[in-house]
């Protein structure tokens, strides 16, 4: 036998035994942590006014369908804050920070609406789990949505839909909606310290980048967990179940879903408006990367012209951001939001007729770029309307519908409007989003479906002194809140400004002569 074998074999053998002993010792000295999360019994005074489920098990987060993977509450101290994620992922953090997802649980419009609802019922705070499940999942899953606050707050709970709320998801039910997501939030924590995590990122991937999670959060169905919303007796006075938000179903049944264009493709594209234009041109290539801005339709929360009112509306500044940086990021996202809104709609003239004493024409409101109805979401506050002005050859106004009173913040009550109305038990419209007393939902006009159009017909009387050719000016407006809501709930006289989605001018009669 070679001397090298004689010399080294015992060393290798002894070292192997020593190594095994060290490993066993390490496991004995540092045992596995207990099952993560907090047991229901360990949250003092936690209220369960809705009773158990069909299997007799408690429903701690009901009426939200949000669940944790192991069925336990989240420990607020263990929920990873987005500010922590920002240490290694600053680009993603700065994309997300100005987004509506980041302020979903703290913006004043939402907060005041929840408070107004909570005051309507003795179980109001517990009923608000319905709202908070999607807007502030950390609060609900930690057990803070309770009349007795027996759980300590944490930064992560104030961050709305933060990194971990998507990156720990294991299941979504877009048909059920109302927050029907299962989050492995208790398992979703880094077990290694930052320096060693950088050497062995596999455990980080286990916590926040599991294969099934990555596959799930890339699908439109994941968004449907929250962007499908129904009311029932748990949180309203609606008998049975009634849809309030059908954004996912609108997309699912659309040309976009049929052609593999997902929610993420548009709303997470680095330049969403450019991506919508790309899709409109027929190029279905996926974005080069997915940004975390979640650019949507709420232009108000990005209107830096509102100054300190904007900070008030957004509920302050997120942990991990300076005031200046916050403003800069909001301004940038505001541009993207406005560009996206402008890419969504179009107007076209349909079936014009100039008859003696009458002008008859149709204005087609076209959904050219949105992969869901226009408008979409819960549209009792958000609404869209059409403004139409007809002028004669002298430029005199002979008809005006859909004017906006910028002083009082009121839309012409006779305007053609796309909105849903919350109706109370007495059949009266509820103008300020009081879900808990809503007994029925009706639509003034349902949203314009993707790649569809809604033709609005006008029949205008023309006085004998008016001469043609006549010109029709049409503007499509969008507004994110009613003025009643601003007065009644926000307690502010701030006029919620509308946003012009698109505008067009048409000549009547629709002949070449008239256009000149």
């Amino acid at each position, binding site marked *: 036998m070679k001397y090298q074998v004689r*010399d080294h*074999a015992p060393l290798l053998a002894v070292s192997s035994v020593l*190594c095994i002993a*060290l*490993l066993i010792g390490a496991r004995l000295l540092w045992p*596995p942590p207990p099952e993560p999360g907090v047991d229901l019994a360990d949250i003092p005074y936690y209220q369960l006014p809705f009773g158990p489920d069909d299997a007799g098990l408690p429903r701690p987060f009901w009426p939200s369908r949000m669940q944790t993977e192991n069925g336990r509450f989240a420990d607020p101290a263990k929920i990873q804050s987005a500010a922590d994620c920002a240490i290694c992922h600053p680009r993603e953090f700065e994309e997300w920070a100005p987004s509506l997802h980041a302020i979903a649980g703290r913006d004043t419009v939402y907060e005041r609406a929840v408070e107004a609802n909570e005051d309507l019922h003795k179980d109001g705070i517990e009923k608000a789990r319905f709202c908070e499940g999607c807007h502030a999942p950390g609060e609900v899953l930690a057990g803070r949505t309770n009349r007795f606050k027996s759980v300590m707050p944490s930064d992560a709970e104030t961050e709305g839909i933060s990194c971990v709320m998507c990156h720990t998801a294991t299941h979504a039910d877009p048909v059920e909606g109302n927050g029907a997501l299962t989050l492995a939030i208790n398992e979703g924590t880094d077990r*290694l310290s930052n320096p060693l995590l950088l050497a062995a990122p*596999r455990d980080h991937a286990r916590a926040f980048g599991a294969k099934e999670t990555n596959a799930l959060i890339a699908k439109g169905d994941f968004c449907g967990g929250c962007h499908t919303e129904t009311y029932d007796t748990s949180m309203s006075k609606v008998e049975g179940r009634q849809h309030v938000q059908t954004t996912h179903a609108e997309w699912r049944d659309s040309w976009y879903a049929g052609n593999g264009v997902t929610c993420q493709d548009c709303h997470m594209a680095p330049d969403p408006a450019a991506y919508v234009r790309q899709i409109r041109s027929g190029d279905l290539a996926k974005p080069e990367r997915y940004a975390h801005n979640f650019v949507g339709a709420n232009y108000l929360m990005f209107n830096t012209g509102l100054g300190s009112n904007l900070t008030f509306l957004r509920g302050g500044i997120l942990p991990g951001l300076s005031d200046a940086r916050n403003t800069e990021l909001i301004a940038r996202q505001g541009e993207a939001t406005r560009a996206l809104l402008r890419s969504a709609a179009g107007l076209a003239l349909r079936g014009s007729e100039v008859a003696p004493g009458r002008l008859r024409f149709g204005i087609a409101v076209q959904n050219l770029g949105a992969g869901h109805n226009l408008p979409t979401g819960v549209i009792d506050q958000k609404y869209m309307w059409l403004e139409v002005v007809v002028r004669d050859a002298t430029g005199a106004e002979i008809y005006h519908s859909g004017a906006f009173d910028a002083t009082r913040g009121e839309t012409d009550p006779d305007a053609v409007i796309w909105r849903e109305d919350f109706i109370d038990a007495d059949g009266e419209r509820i103008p300020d989003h009081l879900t808990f007393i809503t007994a029925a939902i009706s639509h003034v006009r349902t949203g314009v479906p993707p790649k569809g159009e809604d033709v609005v017909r006008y029949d205008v009387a023309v006085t004998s002194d008016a001469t043609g050719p006549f010109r029709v000016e049409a503007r499509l407006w969008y507004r994110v809140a009613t003025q009643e809501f601003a007065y009644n709930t926000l307690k502010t006289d701030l006029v919620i400004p509308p946003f012009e989605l698109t505008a067009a001018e048409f000549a009547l009669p629709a002949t070449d002569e008239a256009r000149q």
Partner: protein
Amino acid sequence: MDYRPSRPRIGRSSLLSIAFAILLGTGLYLEFLADANWNAGEVVLAGHVVLGLGFTVVFASWIGGHVRRGLRTASRQAFRRLSWFLLTLYVLLVATGLLMVLPTTLYLVGVLWFWRFETTGVLTFVHFWGALAATLALFAHLAMRHWRLPMARRGHEAS
């Protein structure tokens, strides 16, 4: 023919053997068992990194002389090939290990940078399979003759 250093037995090569065995054991633990308990796994990982760095230093100081002395006297081509293969594996192991701890090192000096996750997957894959291959190659290297048998004996063995 026997190649044997005149220095004491417990030298750097012995230290390297001890370190290699412990690194292999802790590496296998990290690959297959650490997920179940990172409380212990973190300690093992820290030990693996520190020992790996020590191994790198000792190996770097030792391998030059070993190659010069050993490979120059080795008269068997198969042994020389195996040795170069083993050396390549060791370099690969050390290099991938160092690349994996580079972000940690930078973090400790205040610079935040890390590999793309896919890159860490490749580094881990190469490090892991390189270690297993190096283990087999090391045993072969230790056991394999590096001298050619005398002609007469070769003829005897052949008949």
